[in-house]
C-alpha cells in the first residue's frame, strides 16, 4: 500500500516536472525565438518595397480581370418559394388591344400639351373607371436651381386573399430612363400599367395589395410619392398627403417602354447610394422573361455583340482576329456592363425610377423594353409582368436568401462579393503597408554623432548606427483635421444657391482659392532636426487613413472603393517631399489638380451631384468634399512641405 502511494507520488512528480519543463523554456529557446522573430522582421522590412509593389499590381490586375468569365458564376434562384415561370399566364390579345386604346388616349394628351395636373386627373379617372380606388398627389421641390412641380396618379387593388399588410408596386414614370431622363416619354409603359390594372383586378389570387403608380417627371414624381407613402419629410419638398394607403411594400416593378416595339428586355437595378436589390428578383425576372415571355434579357440596354447586328464594327484599329476572338468579345461585353454598373454605383445614382424604392428597403427593378423594330410588344411585356407579380405574390417574407452584394456581368452571369472585393482590399492593404512602413522609418535616423569621432574607414566598415527620434503626430493630425474642415467648408459653399446660380463663373475662383490655402502650412511648419520631418509623418497617417477609407467603403459601395483606389492608390503612395523647390511645386500642382480638378472640367457632373444630394440625398457630393478632397489635399501638403533632417 505504502509502496503504491510512493510510486504514485513519484509518477505525479514526474508528470509535473515534464509539464514544467515544457512550459518553462530554457534560455536557449528564448534566444531562438528572438532570433526567429528578428529574422522574420528583417525579411519583411527588407522586402517591403517588393511586397507593396506586388500588392498594388495584384490589386489592379484583379480589378482588370473582374470582367473575365473565370471569376463569375451562373445565376440561380435561391428562395424556393418564388417558383418563377411555373404558372400559366392569362394576359392575352384582348388586353393588348386595351393597352393600345390607352396608348391612343395618352398620345392625344401628349399632343394637346396637357399639364401634369390634367394628365394625373385623366389617369385617375381611367383607374376609377376600372373600379379601383384611385387618387392623385401633387408635389413641388424647391431647389437652388428653381422650383419643380408635378402630379402623380396612383391606384390600389386590395388583396382578395390577404389582410392588406403587404403590397407590391407596379409603376411607370412619365419620362423614360433613356439618357437618364432626357425627355423621351414612356407612354407605352404607362399604357401597360393601365391595362394591367384592369387585367389583374379580374383575378382573385393576389395575397398582397397591388399598387399602381404613374409618377410624373423622371425621378422627382416617384420620390415625392414614396416620401409621402413612408411619411419621410424633406425640407425642400412639399407634397400632398396620400389619400389611399396600403401595406408594407416588399417588391416593385417599374416598367419603361419608350420605343414602338422591343427586341430584348433590359434589367436596370442600381439604387441610390449604391444599394442593390436582392438578386432573386433579377433572376426570377430573367427566368420568367426567357421561359414565359420568350423574350431574351440583357443587362441595361447593352446587347450581346453576337446579337447586336446593327453595331458590329467596334474599334477598327484592332486586328480582326483579336477583335473577333470569342474570349475578347465576351470580355469586352462584360467589361461594358461592369463599367456602366461602376458608373451608376460609384456616383450613388439610381439607374432608373426603381432606385428610389431601395432607400425604403424595397427590392425593385426597372424592366426596360430595349427599342427596336421588333418582334415583341404589349403581349410579351404584359405576360412577363403578370408572371413576375405571381412570383412575388408567393413570398412569405422579404427577399433575403440571395445576394445583395454582387456584380452582374451578363444577364445570366454574376460575381459574388468574394470574387471582386479582394481587388480593392489588396490596394488598401498595400497602402496600409506603405503607411506603416513610412511611420516606422520616420522614427529612425542614422546616428552620425559617433561617426565624427571615429575615423571614416571604420565607419564604413561597421554597420550604420540608428538613433530613435520623436515623430510630430499632433501637428500632422491638426493638418489632417484642418483639411477635413476645409472640405466641409467647400461643400457648404457648393450647396449655396448663389453658387449654383453662377457656378460656371465661381468654380474657377473657388478652385484658385482652395488651391492656395494649403500653402499656409508652409508658414506654420518649423522644421527641427531632432524630430522626424513633418511631411513623412503626415504621409504615413494620410496613407493609413486613406487605406481605412477604401477598405470600409469597399463593403458598402464597391464601385466607390474602386474609384478611390484608382484615384488615391498610387498618387498617395508616391508623394514625397523634395529639396528642390520646383519639383515640390510641380508635385503640388499635380495633386491639387487631381483633388480639385473637377471644379474646372467636371462642372456639369458637379451640378448633377449637388442636385442629387438636394433632391434624393445621394451621398456622392458630400463624400467627395469631405473625404476625397481632404485626402488628396493632405498628399499635396506632403509634397509642398520642405523636407529636412
Amino acid at each position, binding site marked *: 500500500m505504502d509502496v503504491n502511494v510512493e510510486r504514485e507520488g513519484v509518477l505525479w512528480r514526474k508528470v509535473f516536472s515534464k509539464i514544467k519543463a515544457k512550459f518553462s523554456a530554457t534560455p536557449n529557446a*528564448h534566444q531562438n525565438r528572438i532570433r526567429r522573430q528578428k529574422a522574420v522582421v528583417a525579411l519583411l522590412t527588407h522586402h517591403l518595397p517588393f511586397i507593396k509593389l506586388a500588392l498594388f499590381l495584384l490589386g489592379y490586375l484583379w480589378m482588370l480581370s473582374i470582367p473575365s468569365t473565370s471569376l463569375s458564376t451562373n445565376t440561380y434562384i435561391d428562395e424556393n418559394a418564388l417558383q418563377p415561370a411555373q404558372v400559366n399566364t392569362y394576359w392575352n390579345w384582348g388586353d393588348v388591344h386595351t393597352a393600345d386604346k390607352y396608348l391612343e388616349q395618352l398620345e392625344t394628351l401628349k399632343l394637346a400639351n396637357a399639364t401634369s395636373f390634367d394628365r394625373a386627373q385623366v389617369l385617375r379617372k381611367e383607374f376609377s373607371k376600372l373600379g379601383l380606388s384611385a387618387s392623385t398627389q401633387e408635389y413641388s421641390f424647391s431647389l437652388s436651381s428653381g422650383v419643380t412641380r408635378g402630379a402623380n396618379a396612383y391606384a390600389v387593388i386590395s388583396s382578395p386573399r390577404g389582410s392588406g399588410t403587404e403590397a407590391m408596386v407596379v409603376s411607370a414614370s412619365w419620362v423614360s430612363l433613356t439618357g437618364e431622363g432626357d425627355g423621351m416619354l414612356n407612354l407605352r409603359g404607362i399604357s401597360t400599367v393601365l391595362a394591367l390594372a384592369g387585367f389583374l383586378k379580374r383575378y382573385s389570387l393576389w395575397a398582397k395589395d397591388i399598387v399602381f403608380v404613374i409618377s410624373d417627371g423622371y425621378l422627382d414624381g416617384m420620390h415625392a410619392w414614396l416620401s409621402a407613402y413612408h411619411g419621410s419629410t424633406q425640407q425642400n419638398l412639399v407634397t400632398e398627403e396620400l389619400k389611399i394607403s396600403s401595406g408594407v411594400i416588399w417588391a416593385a416593378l417599374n416598367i419603361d417602354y419608350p420605343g414602338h416595339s422591343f427586341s430584348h428586355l433590359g434589367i436596370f437595378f442600381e439604387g441610390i447610394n449604391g444599394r442593390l436589390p436582392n438578386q432573386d428578383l433579377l433572376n426570377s425576372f430573367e427566368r420568367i422573361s426567357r421561359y414565359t415571355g420568350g423574350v431574351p434579357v440583357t443587362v441595361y440596354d447593352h446587347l450581346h455583340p453576337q446579337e447586336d447586328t446593327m453595331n458590329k464594327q467596334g474599334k477598327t484599329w484592332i486586328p480582326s482576329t483579336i477583335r473577333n476572338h470569342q474570349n475578347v468579345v465576351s470580355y469586352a461585353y462584360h467589361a461594358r456592363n461592369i463599367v456602366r454598373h461602376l458608373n451608376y454605383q460609384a456616383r450613388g445614382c439610381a439607374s432608373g425610377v426603381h432606385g428610389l424604392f431601395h432607400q425604403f*428597403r424595397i427590392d425593385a427593378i426597372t424592366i426596360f423594353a430595349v427599342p427596336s423594330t421588333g418582334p415583341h410588344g404589349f403581349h410579351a411585356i404584359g405576360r412577363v409582368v403578370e408572371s413576375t407579380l405571381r412570383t412575388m405574390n408567393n413570398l412569405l417574407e422579404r427577399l433575403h436568401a440571395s445576394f445583395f452584394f454582387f456584380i452582374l456581368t451578363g444577364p445570366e452571369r454574376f460575381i459574388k462579393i468574394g470574387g471582386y472585393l479582394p481587388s480593392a482590399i489588396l490596394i488598401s492593404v498595400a497602402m496600409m503597408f506603405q503607411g506603416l512602413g513610412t511611420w516606422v522609418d520616420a522614427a529612425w535616423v542614422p546616428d552620425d554623432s559617433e561617426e565624427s569621432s571615429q575615423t571614416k574607414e571604420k565607419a564604413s566598415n561597421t554597420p550604420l548606427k540608428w538613433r530613435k527620434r520623436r515623430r510630430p503626430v499632433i501637428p500632422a493630425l491638426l493638418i489632417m483635421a484642418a483639411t477635413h474642415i476645409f472640405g466641409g467648408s467647400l461643400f457648404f459653399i457648393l450647396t449655396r444657391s448663389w453658387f449654383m446660380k453662377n457656378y460656371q463663373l465661381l468654380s474657377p475662383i473657388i478652385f484658385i482659392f482652395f488651391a492656395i490655402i494649403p500653402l499656409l502650412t508652409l508658414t506654420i511648419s518649423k522644421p527641427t532636426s531632432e524630430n522626424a520631418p513633418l511631411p513623412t509623418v503626415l504621409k504615413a497617417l494620410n496613407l*493609413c*487613413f486613406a487605406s*481605412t477609407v477604401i477598405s*470600409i467603403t469597399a*463593403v458598402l459601395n464597391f464601385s466607390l472603393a474602386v474609384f478611390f483606389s484608382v484615384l488615391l492608390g498610387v498618387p498617395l503612395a508616391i508623394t514625397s517631399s523634395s529639396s528642390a523647390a520646383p519639383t515640390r511645386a510641380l508635385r503640388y500642382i499635380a495633386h491639387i489638380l487631381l483633388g480639385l480638378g473637377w471644379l474646372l472640367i467636371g462642372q456639369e457632373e458637379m451640378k448633377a451631384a449637388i442636385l442629387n444630394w438636394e433632391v434624393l440625398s445621394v451621398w456622392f457630393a458630400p463624400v467627395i468634399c469631405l473625404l476625397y478632397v481632404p485626402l488628396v489635399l493632405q498628399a499635396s501638403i506632403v509634397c509642398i512641405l520642405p523636407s529636412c533632417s
Partner: protein
Amino acid sequence: MPSLNVAFPALVVARLFVALSSLPDVLKHNHQLSSPLTSFSQLQEGIYLFNHDIDIYSGGTFRHSPLLLATFATIIPTSHTLSSILWTLCDAAGAWALVKIWRARQNVASTPRDSLIAASYLLNPYIFMSTLALSTSSLENTLTLFSIMFACHGNISAALLAFAFLIQLSLSSIVILTPLLLLLITNPLSHLASPRPILVSLRKTIPLLGEITAYTLILSLVSTLVAGSWAWIPQTWGATLTLPDLTPNPGMWWYFFTEMFDHFRPFFLMVFSIHLLIYIAPVCIKFQHDSLYATFILLGVLGTFKAYPTSSDPGLFLSMISLFPETYPYFRHPIVTTLLHLHASLLLPLFHHLWLVQGTGNANFFYASTLVFACANGAALIDCIWAGLRIAIGKQHENSAVVQE
C-alpha cells in the same frame, strides 16, 4: 498649452453647444451609444409608468436602478434640453475628477498637462457621443471617476459612498472594488517603475469592506422603498447576469446568446460572468505596487467584456490612458491599436446601418464589427498591461531583449 482655467470652460461650453443642437435626436436610439440598461428613452418610459402607478419592474422593459427613477421622477424633470445640459455637466464633472486624479498621482497642485487630461475626456468621441445620446452610462463613468478621485485623496467614506451608488447603477462595476480598496490603503503615486510587495496590512480593508456593504444595504433598502418591492433586483442587477434583453450592442455577449440553445444558457452565462471576475486577482497581485494602475486595467477589462457595454465604457479606459504618460515609451503597438479603433469606429455604425436600416446586411455584419471593436479594446488593454510591467525593467540596451517567462 492653454491653462486649465481657460481650456476647461471653453471645452464645456463647446460641448453644451453641440448638446443643444439637433444631433442628440439622431443619436438617441443608437445601439452603440446606449444599451437597454442605460437608454434614456426607456428611462422616460419608466418614469411615465411610475407616475401612473404601474409596477415598472413587472414588464421587463425598464432596467434602470430605482435610484435613477426616484431622482428623475421627483427632483429633476426629464425635459430634453435640461437633460442635455445635465449630462454635459456630468461629463464636465467627470473630466474635473480625472484632472484631480492626475494631480493626486503627480502629487502637485497643477501641471501644464491638466488641460490635455480634461480634453482627453471631454473630446473623446466614444464618451462624447454616448453623452449626446443621453445614455446613463455617462453618469456611471462620472461616479467611477469620483470614487477613484476620492480614493486618491484618501477620502474613504466619500469614495465608498460614490462606489455604492455606482454599484446600484451597474453591478458589473464591482470588478474594480478590490483595486479601489487597495488604493484607499495605499497611495495613488506612480510606483510602476519600482515594483515592490504591498507594505500595508490587508486587514485594513476589512472595515472598508464593512462600510461599503453597509452603504450598499442602505441604498438597496432605499431602492426597495422606491420600487415598492424587491422586484427591481432581478430586473436591474439580474439583467447583467442573465442577459434577458438581446438588443444589439457593441459588446461580446448579445450575439453569442442569440445563437445559444436554451439548455446551454445558464452554463455560459456563468462562464461569461466569472470570466469578468478572474482578472481581478492576477491584475491586483501584479500591480499591487500601483493600485491606480490596477483599477485602470480592470476598467479596460470591463469596457471590453462586460454584459451591456456602450461605447462610453471603453471610452473611459481610453481617456484614462492620459493619466499614465510614463508608460508611453514602452507601448509596443500604439499605431496598430489606433488603426484598429479607427476601423472599428467606422465599421460599427456602417454595418449597423447595413443591417437595420438598409436591410442588405444581417446580424453577422454588425457582430463582425463588434469583434473588430473588441480586438481594438483588447489590443489597447494588452499594450497597457505590457507597458505597465515593462517600465520596471528600464530602457532596453543594445543587443539585448526583454523576454516574458
